[in-house]
């Protein structure tokens, strides 16, 4: 790092023991003279929730699993879910990936922690005294769950209003059980109930109850109904028998009412829902499943590891094809006509596919599943004068001071962790609103952090990324979870690959050696030297 002024030319007198530091940032927080800053590890910087990935990975590396789980749970109350289905932006940003092509399996380590025996009896978090105020949260998916957790911790009464008969939103009703077992979601929801949240299930807002009525009964409302609708191809043949759409198809399976599958199944789409649908079709008895995507293999939005498993299970992938029509006979789908996709995105990076009309392929199909995306259903806001897009990007506030939005409902489909982060932001706003405080003050500040710094790559071990052997689908009816957790040795080995990129440091050389940073360090990892000029 270049020197910016004469003080930064001095040596840093804050000494960090990297073998002890857990990168929690307590020292930075307490430094009276604002000397300290945290070099934020790329994994943590990439996490929408700011989870201290580096900290828990290093603690696992040191064999301190209970501490690692506690560090994880400081920010993330739903590790069971996220250790299975998080898009893991942390791994995408991992410096090890940049240097060697293989990120540290941060999500895998999280899964290891989430599976720890003593986590099963998870203790209740600390909660503030009852505030006497109540909040309604419409939707019990990831955004609603996080908002519920945070608002209960702040002492507010929370009623979650959910259209389905069980809570969990997409986690419960869209993600297949072989990726996210129902009992995991149920345990996360159970923890919210133990915290005192009440769930009003089977109540569809706009039909059974209006938003206006909910507003009248509560002090604030968060609308977090997600994107439960599905996109259509709007092509000929889409209404034929044997043609299904991704989300309703997955939902029917999770509801115990799966459609009949057999013969050749073609799945159209390249995202995780499409891969999930393909793998589900196999388990429902399809003889063959072909997944057709616009994108080439490198562009696929679905997780690479999931795609590999799908392939291993027998799903055939056909990349770079666009759908022209679904051909039918006697009212039933019989084939999908495709044309070669040359390019998905235009020069400006926008979705604008171009095709070669001379390359046509017909794929025979007994069933077709169209899984090309989700859409928002904003009917619950009808008559309220509120548009989803109007939500403030920081506070999630709307033109109605009592109504806040959260999750995918605002801007369309994102990821579970982004939806949770959005739910957390909305909950913070609601708490501030209920206390009569300013909603925006201090919230655009990224924190006392540094993002540009040199990384010492000497710390990571030379091991390759550890991939626990996943379970193989045993055929029709096998919906058991496939992803396996790491063993303790595997978790230690994987954690040893971490470069441990971040660290607190004395940035401004404004130390008065008053020692609170040292006193407050929970690991005795920080030592204040007398600056050389005074030594």
């Amino acid at each position: 790092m270049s020197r910016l002024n004469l003080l930064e030319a001095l040596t840093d007198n804050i000494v960090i023991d990297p073998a002890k530091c857990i990168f929690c940032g307590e020292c930075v927080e307490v430094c009276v003279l604002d000397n300290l800053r945290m070099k934020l590890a790329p994994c943590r910087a990439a996490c929408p929730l700011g989870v201290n990935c580096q900290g828990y990975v290093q603690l696992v590396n040191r064999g301190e699993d209970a501490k690692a789980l506690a560090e994880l749970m400081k920010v993330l109350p739903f590790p069971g879910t996220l250790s299975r289905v998080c898009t893991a932006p942390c791994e995408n940003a991992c410096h090890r990936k940049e240097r060697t092509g293989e990120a540290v399996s941060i999500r895998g380590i999280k899964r290891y922690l989430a599976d720890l025996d003593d986590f099963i009896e998870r203790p209740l978090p600390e909660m503030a005294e009852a505030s006497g105020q109540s909040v309604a949260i419409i939707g019990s998916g990831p955004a609603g769950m996080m908002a519920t957790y945070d608002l209960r911790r702040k002492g507010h009464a929370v009623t979650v209003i959910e259209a389905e008969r069980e809570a969990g939103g997409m986690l419960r009703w869209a993600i297949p059980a072989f990726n996210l077992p129902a009992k995991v979601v149920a345990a996360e929801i159970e923890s919210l109930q133990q915290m005192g949240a009440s769930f009003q299930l089977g109540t569809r807002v706009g039909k059974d109850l209006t938003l206006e009525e909910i507003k009248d009964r509560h002090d604030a409302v968060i609308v977090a109904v997600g994107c439960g609708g599905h996109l259509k191809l709007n092509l000929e043949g889409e209404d034929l028998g044997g043609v299904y759409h991704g989300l309703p198809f997955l939902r029917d399976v999770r509801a115990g009412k799966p459609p009949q599958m057999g013969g050749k199944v073609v799945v159209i789409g390249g995202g995780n829902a499409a891969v999930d649908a393909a793998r589900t079709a196999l388990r429902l008895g399809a003889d063959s499943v072909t997944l057709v995507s616009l994108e080439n293999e490198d562009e696929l939005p679905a997780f690479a590891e999931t795609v590999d498993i799908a392939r291993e299970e027998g799903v055939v992938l056909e990349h770079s094809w666009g759908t022209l029509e679904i051909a039918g006979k006697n009212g039933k789908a019989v084939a999908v006509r495709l044309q070669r996709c040359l390019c998905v995105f235009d020069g400006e990076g926008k979705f604008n596919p171009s095709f070669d009309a001379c390359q046509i392929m017909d794929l025979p199909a007994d069933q077709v599943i169209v899984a090309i995306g989700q859409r928002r259903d904003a009917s619950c806001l009808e008559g309220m004068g509120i548009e989803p897009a109007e939500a403030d990007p920081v506070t999630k506030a709307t033109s109605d001071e009592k109504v806040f939005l959260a999750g995918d409902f605002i801007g369309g489909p994102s990821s579970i962790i982004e939806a949770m982060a959005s739910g957390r932001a909305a909950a913070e706003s609601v708490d501030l609103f209920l206390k009569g405080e300013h909603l925006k003050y201090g919230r655009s500040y990224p924190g006392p952090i540094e993002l540009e710094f040199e990384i010492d790559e000497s710390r990571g071990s030379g091991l390759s990324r550890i991939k626990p052997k996943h379970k193989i689908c045993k055929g029709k009816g096998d919906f058991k979870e496939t992803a396996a957790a790491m063993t303790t040795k595997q978790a230690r080995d994987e954690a040893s690959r971490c470069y441990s990129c971040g660290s607190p440091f004395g940035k401004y050389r404004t130390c008065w050696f008053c020692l609170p940073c040292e006193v407050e360090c929970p690991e005795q990892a920080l030592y204040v030297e007398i600056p050389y000029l005074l030594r």
Partner: protein
Amino acid sequence: MKHDYPVIDADVLIIGGGSAGAMAAIRAKEVDPHQEVVVFEKGHVKYSGCIARGMDALNIVAIPGLDTPELYVESNGIACHGVMDEPQALVMAQRSFALLKKLESWDVCFPLDEKGNYEVLQVHPKGKFCVTMKEPELKTILAKRCLELGVRVVNRTMGMRLIKNGGAVTGAIGMNARTGEVMVCRAKSVILSSGGTARFGLPNNGYLYGVYDFPGNTGDGYVMAYKAGAELSGFEYTCIYYIVKDINAPLLYITLTRGAHLFNAFDQAFHEEHPGIPMMHDEHQANRGPMRIRLDHLPEDKIREVEELLFSTERPVQERFYEGRGVNFRSGEIELWPTECFLCGGHGQTGVRVNVKAETTVPGLYAAGDTSLVARGHLTGAFVYGEIAAENATEYAASKGRVEIDHGQVEDFIRDRDSRLGSGAGPIPIEEFEYKVRRMINDYIVPPKNDYKLNRALWWMDRFRKELFEVVKVKDRHDLFKTYEVENIIQCALMSALASRERKESRWGLWHYRSDYPKMDEAWRKHIVLTMGASPEDVKIAHAPVVTL
């Protein structure tokens, strides 16, 4: 344009959450648990101010049956060379023992001897008033009590300007030191307790923050009070301590009162008489320095007692300092030198003028601790006047209805802030600029003073005031916040030079030694009072008599 910023309400707003401010907040809640008490704290209240790791003594306690408050007034009057308002000192001393008992009830440790008596040391010309305290957690105890009592602490928020309405203070503008965001507090009364000016002269060690007093103190309280129309005094009392070389940490009385020996560079002994800092400065100025402390003649248990206090409380970092220097008290010696020059109400006599109710001359505005002028009140002064300010600010607030904020004053500040961000594209880092400002303070304001030097100081401060906006680089919010700190240092230097030039005599030993007026003159046994004229640089000077009992 009307900006969007939070406005919070308080009955009592306290600016500065150090010793005085934290105690004021606690007292305000004790007096009226239902009132809203807000603290703007520039750092983090848990450890901010001078007592991050506690304090080794409660410097002034008139223990019943031992010494009287009246004797303290006499004794401190001698130390202040007669320029001390006696009623304020008396009230402080009268409440000092109750203060000790209160702290004790909060589990603050005051060691007792085998007979159950407090350890009382003589550090004043007359009487024993300094009681040993051994409490590294003193500040965390205060901070915890604040939070338990429902005080709202807004950390990382520097008090920028007081807001006035109809001649009275009705709130203040704070700025987040990390984000630059503005927060306004609408308050019925305001207590200033943001310390003195510790970052004033440049220390010999060359480290901008390697100063004796808490370096977060940059005269913010003085300048806010001044701009609001309050009277300041004692800016010519340019304090320089004489303590451990380079680390500028205190140890003098802990060692001397336990039998340490004090020598000058020629091995002449000075520990027989009651030795004080003025004497050591005299030796140093006469080129017979540096002074040194030796403990090698003391028994092991005495040395351990000294070490236990020094290395656990107030500045425990001293232990690693001595290790680094290879100094073992059993064989080595401790070298003392003059510290940098600083302005302070608690250690010295610089501050906002207050009466026995901690009232300033501006309605609704109170001051306590190093910001206020309760001469040489030290920690006792901070605590007692924190309490007094809280009691009277509470009473004042209770007599007021809703107060209004003049948002125009906030908009003026926001314009000023934004112009600094927009115009600060010069080449000079703010730290380099601060270094030069403080070097010039050393050259021209640090005694010995004379008219020529003080006029040069004025010329430089005028130049710095302009250069701050012309040459300094403001690359982020951190720099922005520092520009306000350095601007306050420049303002304090200007006021110090003017007050020093006004007092045409020498007084307080080195601290106001004028080579062109080397004698003390009884005609100057009075206060030099500063108030703001048409603008901050237009400093009005008046004289005021010393108030006696």
